[in-house]
Structures are given as C-alpha cells and as structure tokens.
C-alpha cells in the first residue's frame, strides 16, 4: 500500500521493553510495542475490511476522504528469543486500493505459547464506507458514525455500534452486543450472539418490528412493543411491533443470554420481560454451599456416577411431599423427595438422590442420574445416558441414544436404548424387556432367585446373561447372522437343542432347552452378535432398608 502523500505520512515506531510487573500476561516478561500511524486515500463509497484475530478495533466515520490508521502492535513473550520469534511471525499488514482498504493482522505458522501478539486499531474512515470487521478475541470492537453497511463478527469481546445508519449484521459467540440508534431505524438489522447479551437502544418514537429468538434467555424492553411469543421445539420466539410499524425488522438472536430493546430515555433496570411470568427463565445458578454438600453426599452414597452438570435451575436438598417441576432448559437437582416426583426438562440433566414415591422424569435431551427410587420409575430421555442405582419397584428406563445402567431392579422392568449398551447389574424382578438398537446387553440375575423371566433383544451387539448356579429356566436363544461361524451361542452348560434355518440372506441359529428341569422363560435374541450365558455365583447387592 502506498501512502497518498508523503507529507501526510507519519510513522512513529517506539520500542518499549517493559518490566514484568507492568505486563498483564503472567510469565510474559518481555514486551515490544510498535505504533504505526498512516494515512491512505479512500473513496467515499469504498469498503474497509479489518481482520484482527487478537486486539481491539475502533472505527469512526468522519467527513474526510481518507483512511487514518493508528495501530498499536504489541508482542509479549517469556524471553528475548520468544520475543524475537513473535515479532518475526506476526505483523499488521495494511493494503488494498482506495476502493477497498484491507487491514490484516497476520500470524505466520509457528505460533506457540511462548509469545502472544495483539494489534489495537484506531481508524478514521469516510462516513459513507462499508465496514467489515472480523476478530477472535479483543476487549472491544466499536463502530461509530457510519452510514454504510456494517458487518462485525467475533468470538470473545464486546461489540458496540453507535450511530450506524446502514444495514447491520453482527455475530458473536461470547460477546455482548450494544447498538445505539440515534434516529429511528430505517433498514433491517440482525444481531446474534451465542452466550452474550444484546442491547438495542432506540428513540421512543421509533417504528420497527422486533423479532427476538432465544434458546434459554429472555426478552426485555422499556418500550410499548405489541406482539406475541411462540414456544417452539428449538426455543422461544417473540415478535412485536413498536408504534404499529410493519418494518424494518430488528432481529436479535441469543442462545443463552438476554435481549433488550430499550428507549434512549430509560434505564436498563426499568426493562420488563415480554414473556409471561411462567415462561421467564430463572437462569441457571451454581450450587449453594448446602447444595454442594448434598451433591457430594448423594454422589458418594446414592448415585452410580457423579453428575456432569455444575449449575442448576432447580436445586432442592429435601422436598417434603410431591415435587413437580418443569423447565425449558436447565439442569435439576433434588437430593430427596419424600413423595412423588414428576420432573421434565426440554434440555438438561436431572439428578435425583432418593425418591420415596412414584418417580417420573423426562428430558428431551440430557442425561438422567437417579439414585434410590423406591416407588415405580419412569425415566425417559431423547438423548443421553441413564444411570439408576435402584429401581426398587421396577418400571421403565428408556433413552433414544445413550447407555442405560441400572444397578438393582427390584420389580418388573423394561429397558430400552436407541443406540448404546444396557447394563442391569442385578435383576431381582422380571426383565420384561431389554432392547437396544445397537449395543450390548449385560444382565445379571439376583443370586437369590431360582427362576426369573428375561426377554432381551440386541441388534448389532451381544447379550451376556449371568445366572446363579441351580437357576431354572426354559431357554430360547436366537442368533440371526450373515456369518454363522462368527456369531455363536456360548453356554457353560449342555443339553441345548440347536437348529439352523436360512431366512433370506441370514442364518437363524436357534437353541432351546430346559435348564435344571425348566422354569421361567428366558428369550434372548441378537442380530449379528453373540449370546453368552454363564453360571456364576456373584455376590448379592443388598439395598439398605427405607425408613
């Protein structure tokens, strides 16, 4: 890039070596800073592209016809060698034509953790140019007083747009977005962030349509927006009109954060949610000290494995009576329910220590982690593992994808996985059905039982049934397979009658027999897998008495 006029070129380079205490980054004892001040001619209808992975960017529109660059390039490093590497492998590059100016902070291959480099840009541009800024991480990205179109993208760091008249499209992942309209908006704009908040400030007399989307956030306003919300499978959508306008559309989309539409004369604190009270998310909070204590106790004594969640929208240590709770998105923890439990979340983990009554838990996505369930259990999730320490009266445990693990089933039980293994460590009641669409099934019969019905089906997996010595059963074992020599039935007892039958391309190996004179029916079926029945005297799992 050639400067427009030598007279307007000012390049000042200052090399500063700072003491360790002055540096933010721990361990980065060396630093070098270079300031670059340059001016370039720029067309009024031109464009500016800034790609600055690390560092802040400030763009201000002016009435001039040039791009004024004031860039501060800082390299921090652990020692002199790393500092030299950092200076060699990173640099700002200023280029382009008067029609399209480009400022890029370049990082050559070989970047490592011994050094870091950031560039802070302060830019003055003709007010009417289009601006595009992409960044990964920086304190802030600001665009002010620009009437052209503006596109801003980043991962971390806040984005502020003030007095931007043109079309705006802003995308962030973890940053907050703030937009200040000096006059009523006239063109569509879209602001999206995954985890940040969005604040749009506009004159009270503005005419616009606010279309807001969120997964687990809220919509708040201080303006008289008239509209309605819709709960959808994929979150909540609100659309409302301000001052009866049919357009333009201001779209805000935040996954977990909140979106505000504010009047320029009111405070943020005055904003109210446009959602009905029952739809307003409580917001996940970290466990209180009491909950932490209860979590530790429940994890060590009741749960099969520790919960994965670390924050909860509902946390109860002891709930006397029936506990009923439903939420859109969020994890739930209750250490003990003395009555029935009826819990639903559309996305989240449910953690229950002990339920004395009937237990019904459902998640449309998320693991279920249950301890001692005294009453009948119904546990369903659309995605995720299910762990149950004890289903004393049996029930239904079902996931559309994930592993199912039940340590003790004291009553008739049905187990289902749309894809994953099923493990039942002690079947003290009938196994009415254990079925997986792709996985192995392991069932161990309570050693105290002399007979117990079992029905299990695995597609593409194996079934291993462990029975106690002297166990009586009427056995029917079926293997459907394309490779009859590969998939087999293994038993450590004889007397089975085996037949082979060709069914289409597959061979059906069927073994029937009476074990120890016969007993309850055991039917195991696998498709492309093995069946193994082993006789083993495993120690019985004894559940503590419930008071």
């Amino acid at each position, binding site marked *: 890039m050639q400067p427009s006029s030598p007279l307007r070129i000012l390049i000042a380079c200052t090399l500063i070596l700072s003491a360790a205490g002055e540096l933010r980054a721990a361990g980065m004892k060396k630093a070098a800073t270079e300031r670059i001040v340059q001016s370039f001619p720029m067309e009024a209808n031109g464009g500016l592209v800034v790609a600055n*992975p*690390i560092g802040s960017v400030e763009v201000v529109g002016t009435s001039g016809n040039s791009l004024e660059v004031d860039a501060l390039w800082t390299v921090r490093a652990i020692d002199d060698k790393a500092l030299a590497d950092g200076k060699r492998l990173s640099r700002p590059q200023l280029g382009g034509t008067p029609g399209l100016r480009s400022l890029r902070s370049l990082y050559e291959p070989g970047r490592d953790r011994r050094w870091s480099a950031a560039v802070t840009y302060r830019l003055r541009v003709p007010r009417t140019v289009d601006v595009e800024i992409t960044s*990964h*991480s920086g304190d802030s990205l600001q665009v002010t007083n620009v009437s052209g179109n503006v596109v801003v993208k980043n*991962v*971390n760091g806040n984005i502020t747009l003030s007095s931007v008249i043109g079309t705006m499209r802003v995308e962030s*992942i*973890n940053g907050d977005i703030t937009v200040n309209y000096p006059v009523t908006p006239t063109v569509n704009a879209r602001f*999206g962030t*995954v*985890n940040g908040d969005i604040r749009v400030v506009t004159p009270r007399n503005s005419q616009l349509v606010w279309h807001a989307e969120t*997964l*687990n956030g809220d919509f708040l306003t201080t303006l008289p927006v008239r509209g309605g919300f819709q709960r959808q*499978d*994929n*979150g909540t959508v609100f659309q409302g009109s301000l001052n009866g306008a049919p357009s333009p559309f201001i779209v805000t*989309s935040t*996954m*977990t954060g909140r979106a505000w539409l504010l009047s320029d004369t009111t405070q943020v604190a005055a904003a109210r949610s446009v959602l009905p009270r029952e739809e307003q998310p409580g917001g996940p909070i970290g466990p209180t000290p009491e909950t932490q204590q209860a979590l530790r106790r429940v994890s060590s004594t009741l749960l099969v494995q520790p919960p*994965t969640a670390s924050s909860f929208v509902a946390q109860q240590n002891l709930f006397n009576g029936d506990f009923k709770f439903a939420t859109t*998105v969020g994890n739930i923890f209750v250490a003990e329910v003395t009555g029935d439990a009826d819990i639903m979340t*559309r*996305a*989240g983990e449910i953690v229950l220590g002990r339920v004395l009554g009937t237990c019904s838990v459902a*998640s*449309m*996505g*998320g*693991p279920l982690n249950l301890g001692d369930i005294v009453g009948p259990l119904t546990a369903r999730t*659309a*995605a*995720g*593992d299910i762990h149950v320490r004890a289903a004393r009266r049996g029930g239904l445990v079902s*996931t*559309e*994808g*994930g*592993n199912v693990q039940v340590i003790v089933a004291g009553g008739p039980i049905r187990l289902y996985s*749309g*894809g*994953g*293994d099923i493990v039942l460590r002690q079947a003290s009641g009938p196994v009415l059905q254990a079925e*997986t*669409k*792709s*996985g*192995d099934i392991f069932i161990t019969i309570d050693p105290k039982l002399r007979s117990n019905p079992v029905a299990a089906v695995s597609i*593409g*997996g*194996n079934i*291993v049934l462990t029975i106690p010595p002297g166990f009586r059963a009427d056995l029917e074992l079926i293997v459907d397979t394309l*490779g009859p*020599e*590969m998939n087999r039935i293994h038993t450590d007892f004889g007397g089975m009658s085996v037949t082979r039958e060709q069914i289409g391309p597959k061979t059906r190996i069927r073994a029937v027999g009476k074990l120890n004179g016969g007993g309850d029916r055991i039917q195991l079926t696998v498709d492309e*897998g*093995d069946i*193994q029945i082993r006789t083993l005297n495993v120690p019985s799992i004894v559940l503590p008495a419930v008071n």
Partner: protein
Amino acid sequence: MPECDAVREAMPALLLESLESDLRERSHLHIEGCEECALQWENWRLTWTAMDSLHDVPVPTRLRVRFLDHVASLTPAGTVVPMARPRPVVRRWLAQAAAMVILVGGSFYAGHRTIPAPVSGPKNYVTPATVNNVSTTPFSIAESQVVSASQISPDIEGRPQIRNVRFLEPDGTSEKVAIAFDMTSHVTVTGRPDEKGLVRVLSYVLQNQDHSSLSKSNAMAFVKETYSGETSPNPDLVRALANVLKNDTHEGARIKAVEALRSIPPGSASAARSALVEALKNDPNPAVRIKAIDALANLAKSGESFDSATVDLLRQKAGQNDENLYVRVKAAEALGQINL
C-alpha cells in the same frame, strides 16, 4: 489344447511342489516346449516370488470364513461315502488354489487396510505356551504360522484345545511331513501400561472388527481406567480409539470410545480432535455427540485453542434448529469455554 489346460490347472500345485512326481515331470516337459504355458508359468513364479516380499498379515477371520463357506458350497455334499478313493490331486489342487487365493486376497486386502499390521515380526519362530518360558525371539500373535518341529518345546503345558488336524504327506523329494491344526491357547501379556507390545495388542483389539465387540468393550473400559489422567497418552492408542469412534458401526462401542477419549487428555493428538469433531458433525447417536462436545469443552477449558472450523462447527451446532436442544446448549457452553 487340452494338455495346456491341464498343465495350467496344475501350476499352483506345481509351484507348491505338491504334484505327484510323474505328473510334475510331464508338466515341466510341456512347459519347456510350449511358449504360452512357459509365459504363464513365469507369471506364476513371479507372483509367488513377489508374495514372499509381502508382510505376513493375517487374513481377517470373516473373510476366510466366507471364502471357505463359499468353497464348501461348491463341493457337492452327499450322504453316500464313495468306495473309491477320490482323486487326491484334484482335491489337493482345490485346497492349494484356495490357499493361493486366500494368501493373495488376504495380502491384497491387508495391504489396502489403513491400520497397521497388528504385530510385525519374523515369520517362523517358537511360540512358547507359557509366560514363564523366556524366549529370545519375540512372541508372535498371528493368525497362522509355520514352525519347524525342532523349535517346538518338548513340553506341552496345560490342555490347549487342538482342532481341525490335518496331515500333509511327504512329496517324495524329502522326508518331511507336516501337521497342521488350529489351537486355542490363553495368552496373558504382562507389562507396563506404556509398553509398546501391550499398547499394540490393545490397539489391535480396539480396532479389530472381526472380534466380538465384548472384547472391544472390555478393552475400552480398560483403556479408560488405565490411561485416564496420563499427561501424554500413547498416540497409537489414541488413534485406535479415534478409529473406533469414526468407523465402528456398534453405537455402544462408539459411546465407549468417545468416553475413553474424553478421559484421556489428547494433548496434541490431532487424530483424537478430528475424530471428536467428526463425531459431533456426523454421528447419528446423540449421546456420542453430547460426549464429543463435552470432550471438546474439556479441551477448551484446559486452554487448548480451536481452529476456526471447530469454532464454526460449535457455533453451527448451537444454532442448528433440527439438532437436539441439549446438544445445542452444550455447544453454547463449550463455546463459552473458548479462550483464544
């Protein structure tokens, strides 16, 4: 040219020197006088020599079984026992041709597999039946081996199951006979968790599609317990787990693989990271996707930086309307951990 046909049909047996002497003599005489058969014979010999240079990679059991089943189905089975001795040459030719096809097909198949041969080592060696015996040659885990009788330990320990015993007659040129059999023996490999031999066996079990997935499940549980918390896990092992996660049709196995990868800090293992990204992008099982996100979030939490493609994928997952809501929430959480 019926004689040419007969000679060409006999070439595999001729190559193996298992043709009866008069027939062998006649075949060689014909080859010397027939240009086309000489060319054919030269091709056979070149192929045979080239096969010597190939690594001795076992033919997968499934392939072998299918082939033998196919061969068996071509042989008419009857209940009448023939009074006359069947022509041994034809039967032998068939077996030898089968052996050739297995060897060639197996080598071709193995050569095209992306995974390395499970165990490399010399072709012929002693395989002691107990770990107490100390052998100077490396112990081989191979599907088939040829061992000289002089290398067999005089003691047979325990009661190994020996099946499918066949005796190969002397061919007239040497006094040597051969006994071939299938043997089932139990092997215990001891060593440090990071020892190469142990890791190779584990990697083989993890990736072997032909073995019962119960072995694979056990191996993955072992890997998860033994290697979790290791700061620099063996790359072979990480690669094996990544392969299971990418390629295994058994969803339970894939869930275990992603759990194991989550518990092992992959560090700079790009194979693990790309497998996690691939699983998040394409795995039909939501539990696998959830665990893949968890693993990626753990990486982000530990300070690993993500490339822009991974960040974009997480962003896309967070906003993907047809994705499970929990996966979207987890993707948003993972993005919240990103520290560039």
